[in-house]
């Protein structure tokens, strides 16, 4: 063939997803669909109090409920040294309490019964006496002298967990002093919850050989297996974690929750399989939260509008234990990406963490380790600085961006950005939305006293954790893996260490392998999530699948190609040096019609004697990325604000993303549209507030406000492509960019609309009553 041959389902093609076939038929296999003979059901007694001593716990009435088999308490677990477990940040967390509850909704006891209804009856029949204790809700008050000390069990004398800092404190202070203009903002990024539509759950089974199998809603099955082995003392070969279809993860299915452990204990004690599926209230009141950062940021600039320095002081509310899902060396995650898209000469960031009577967590909410907190802060302050200097915010950014020729770029806080063209993305977004016309319209509306605003966010992400040198979780290095096997007829099975929760791995990984192996993606099966079959990996979160396992898949395919080239050489009776991989097949250099396809080579690999080579055609790769990847984008949002009611309407939202080389454009668009919606939600609607008594005020979807199709803006998306220089095929990862970048654009737009009132900040979510208050307090003044 003359022109280069494209392989069906290769990189860059928008093929429909392979996994859809089962989902559209209602044949997905989620944890709650697992049904085993003799299976029992676990339900949990939860604490109504945020902080209380348990003075009595009586099981009798519950054990008398028809169908109830067992009631498991903290005392029972303590006897087996299982009342406490380690968190991912090496803090300690209760599985079940022995004497004190630390937050409302905490698991207090487990009831095991023959069906869910009986289990619920049993939960209602467990009698617990509490003596309420003083509640610590505000992290600032938590650190004041005389505040009740929550973790005396750890020998602590106060509620301070850790202090972490990075950057040049003295140089930053000096630079700020010398800056012509300095602005300062206090930003609170409230507690939110990922609320995947599928809650968490598991089915635990111990077989006759004493092997424990747990079907679990987890994004990181291999790491979970190791943690279970370390906590329970069971040999790791006797533990099998299966992560079946997952109904959304977004970071919430990374941690180990008490319910999982109690279910395993229940299976061990009853000798029967036990299913635990939490209800939504349990999910919202006890599972890992995200954000909850109280940020104070200062930014300096010259009077002609060049950014000089950034200083950030943050207090993190971690609840009663630090159960954040961060790499061990980074207690505040990758928060120090906070210098964003700008070449600050110097910067300094410090974070302190505090205990409060709230559930533990600190997971990502569709973002890579505290990157949203960072991107929100820098893009909010850059916007405020532009307004302060009376320079158009777009012009201000274009003037300050790290220029394309500066990559690889060393940031003031120590990151090496791989590649970028920030001006290109912003200019494209401005063209798409008609930036200049919008500004004209806004000017006219202002004359008429109408409130319209335009906001920008030009964020830089940091994903793909990560280089093993810096990145580990509980000591487990954050490489990831792929094992690729070509069958004699040229069909492929590949297993990877990650786990899809809707991202479409069964399709995109097949596309990577199709491109690398010259085999149609229709004939490539992808498997993940079974620790007995898949190679070890750290799992899917932090947009790391494509940068790590995706890279591993390509590398494994290339290892296979190296061997296949030798086989092809034998088949074509030429020297391996005369073979080249071209147009997805092995060709004799300069003789295109003398060639072998991968399928022909595969057949030979199993059917003909190979000189100096083993039979078969497979390879494994454990990919340790040389650096992280740095996706970026520019978003522009236009809003109208109802002056009287404070209601905000997002009229338009243009998102231009650059995630490097794209594997499947349709899937990437889907990831961005979903990510934008999870950026809009916390900006406008979602929050888990606590009252002074520590009551969770958003314990159901009546109060925890997930946007419907009606509230969700009509997203407009665009792309630029700047490949990653160090990734095997130039990809960067895209799952979270939009969630990271969107909130600042929306808030900036609303504050732009409120400029006549001189408002410089409203903390998210921008509920009508907060916007109303901002307008009216200024009206009154």
């Amino acid at each position, binding site marked *: 063939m003359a022109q280069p041959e494209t392989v069906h389902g290769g990189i860059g093609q928008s093929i429909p997803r392979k996994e859809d076939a089962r989902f559209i038929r209602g044949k997905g296999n989620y944890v709650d669909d697992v049904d085993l003979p003799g299976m029992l059901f676990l339900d949990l007694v939860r604490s109504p109090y945020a902080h209380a001593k348990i003075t009595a716990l009586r099981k009798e009435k519950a054990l008398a409920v028809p169908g109830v088999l067992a009631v498991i308490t903290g005392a029972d677990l303590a006897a087996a040294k299982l009342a406490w477990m380690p968190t991912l940040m090496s803090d300690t967390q209760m599985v079940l309490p022995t004497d004190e509850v630390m937050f409302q909704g905490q698991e207090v006891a487990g009831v095991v019964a023959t069906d869910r209804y009986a289990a619920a009856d049993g939960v209602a029949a467990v009698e617990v006496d509490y003596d309420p204790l003083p509640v610590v809700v505000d992290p600032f008050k938590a650190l004041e002298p005389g505040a009740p000390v929550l973790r005396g069990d750890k020998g602590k004398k106060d509620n301070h967990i850790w202090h972490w800092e990075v950057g040049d404190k003295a140089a930053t202070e000096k630079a700020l002093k010398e800056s012509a203009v300095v602005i300062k903002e206090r930003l609170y990024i409230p507690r939110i919850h990922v609320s995947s539509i599928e809650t968490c759950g598991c089915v635990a089974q111990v077989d006759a050989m004493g092997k424990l199998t747990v079907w679990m809603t987890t994004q990181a099955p291999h790491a979970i297996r190791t943690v279970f082995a370390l906590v329970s003392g069971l040999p790791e070969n006797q533990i099998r974690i299966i992560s079946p279809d997952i109904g959304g993860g977004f970071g919430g299915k990374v941690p180990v929750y008490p319910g999982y452990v109690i279910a395993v204990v229940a299976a061990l004690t009853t000798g029967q399989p036990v299913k635990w599926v939490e209800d939504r209230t349990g999910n919202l009141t006890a599972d890992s939260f995200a954000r909850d950062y109280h940020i104070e940021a200062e930014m300096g600039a010259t009077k002609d509008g060049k950014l000089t320095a950034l200083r950030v002081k943050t207090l993190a509310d971690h609840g009663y234990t630090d159960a954040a899902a961060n790499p061990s060396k980074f207690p505040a995650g990758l928060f120090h990406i906070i210098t964003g898209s700008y070449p600050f000469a110097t910067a300094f960031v410090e974070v302190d963490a505090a205990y409060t009577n709230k559930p533990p967590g600190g997971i990502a909410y569709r973002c890579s380790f505290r990157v949203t907190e960072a991107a929100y802060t820098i893009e909010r302050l850059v916007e405020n600085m532009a307004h302060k200097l009376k320079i158009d915010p777009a012009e201000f950014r274009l003037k300050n961006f790290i220029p394309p020729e500066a990559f690889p770029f060393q940031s003031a806080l120590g990151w090496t950005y791989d590649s970028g063209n920030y001006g290109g993305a912003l200019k494209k977004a401005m063209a798409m939305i008609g930036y200049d016309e919008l500004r004209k319209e806004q000017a006219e509306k202002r004359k008429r006293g109408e409130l319209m605003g335009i906001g920008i966010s030009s964020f830089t992400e940091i994903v793909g954790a990560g280089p093993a040198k810096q990145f580990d979780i509980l000591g487990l290095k954050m490489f990831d893996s792929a094992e690729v096997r070509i069958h004699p007829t040229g069909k492929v099975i590949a297993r990877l260490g990650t786990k899809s929760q809707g991202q479409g791995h069964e399709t995109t990984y097949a596309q990577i392998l199709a491109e690398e192996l010259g085999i149609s993606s229709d004939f490539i099966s992808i498997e993940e999530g079974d620790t007995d079959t898949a190679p070890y990996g750290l799992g899917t979160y932090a947009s790391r699948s494509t940068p790590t396992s995706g890279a591993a898949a390509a590398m494994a395919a290339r290892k296979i190609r190296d061997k296949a080239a030798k086989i092809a050489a034998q088949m074509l009776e030429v020297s391996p040096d005369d073979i080249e991989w071209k147009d997805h097949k092995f060709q004799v250099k300069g003789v295109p019609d003398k060639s072998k396809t991968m399928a022909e080579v595969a057949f030979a690999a199993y059917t003909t004697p190979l000189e100096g080579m083993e039979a078969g055609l497979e390879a494994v790769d454990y990919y340790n990325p040389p650096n992280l990847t740095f996706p970026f984008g520019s978003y522009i949002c236009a809003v109208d604000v109802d002056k009287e009611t404070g209601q905000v309407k997002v009229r338009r939202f243009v998102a231009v993303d650059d995630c490097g080389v794209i594997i499947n454009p349709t899937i990437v668009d889907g990831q961005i549209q979903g990510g934008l919606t999870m950026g809009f939600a916390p900006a406008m609607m979602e929050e888990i507030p606590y009252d002074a008594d520590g009551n969770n*005020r958003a314990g159901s979807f009546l109060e925890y406000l997930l946007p419907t199709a009606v509230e969700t803006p009509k997203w407009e998306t665009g792309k630029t492509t700047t490949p990653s220089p160090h990734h095997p095929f130039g990809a960067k990862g895209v799952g979270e960019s939009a969630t990271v970048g969107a909130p600042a654009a929306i808030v900036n737009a609303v504050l732009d609309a409120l400029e006549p009132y001189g408002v410089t900040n409203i903390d998210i979510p921008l509920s009508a009553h907060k916007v109303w208050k901002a307008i009216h307090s200024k009206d009154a003044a």
Partner: protein
Amino acid sequence: MYPPNFEYYAPKTVQEAIGLLDQHQGEAKVLAGGQSLIGMMKLRLAQPAALIDINRIPDLAYIREEEAALVIGALTRTAELGRSEVVRARYPVLSDAAAEIADPTVRNWGTVGGNVSHGDPGNDLPACMMALGAEYRAEGPKGARTIPARQFYQDSFVTALRPNEVLTQVRIPRAGPGTGSAYSKMERKVGDFATAAVAVQLRVGKGGSIDLAGIGLTNVGPTAIYAAAASEFLMGKTGTDSDLKRAGELASDASRPFPDNRGPVEFKKDMVRVWTRRTIAHALARAKGGK
């Protein structure tokens, strides 16, 4: 979340239902759509000993305009109310509200009778019925009686309906020429209870002045509220901007909101003011033949 055990009855007649209620002496609940009740039972906040499912009773689902009144059967689904042509044409306050109750799927099963008798101040139809001057037909062991909507709501979940009575029909005085009505609901998202919501019906007489006015408020107090002073104020007015402004202030004075995630008291009172003014304007436009 799973409900506790209960007895279940599916009577075929209203009389049978009343007998069952009477015999359970306040421990039974009528099950119509159950879109609020079943949720509370799953939370185990409501634990009735028995449910009396009235869905098997024929002829309780209808919307008829009679000579003097629009009559709506208790089992009419709120989605049906939203689709009704006669309602849209002459009682649009109900179509407006029906489009805002919970979400489209819940409306397919939730009923008009359930919405008006549940007693949650967040239900949308009570304020409408107050604005329209509706009456509820309550049937009990001693026969039937009618209760004006404006006197039906006593406290959160506490109504004038006796434990052994079934609410079988809503009766709304027929809207004559020159009548216009509207409902505005400020909500945080689809499916939410109102931050504040206002129902208005008024009639513009021959002389061009208002000779009938009713204003009801949703979720700004322990019950739905009839804004009497604001309604009376409008009588005889032509509906100038200042009339509307004043009526808004009077309605706001009548509200007794509690603070919650939707906002503080002063905000909610101000929203009653704003939305009353806007909703009267909308109703007025409709009265004058606008859309």
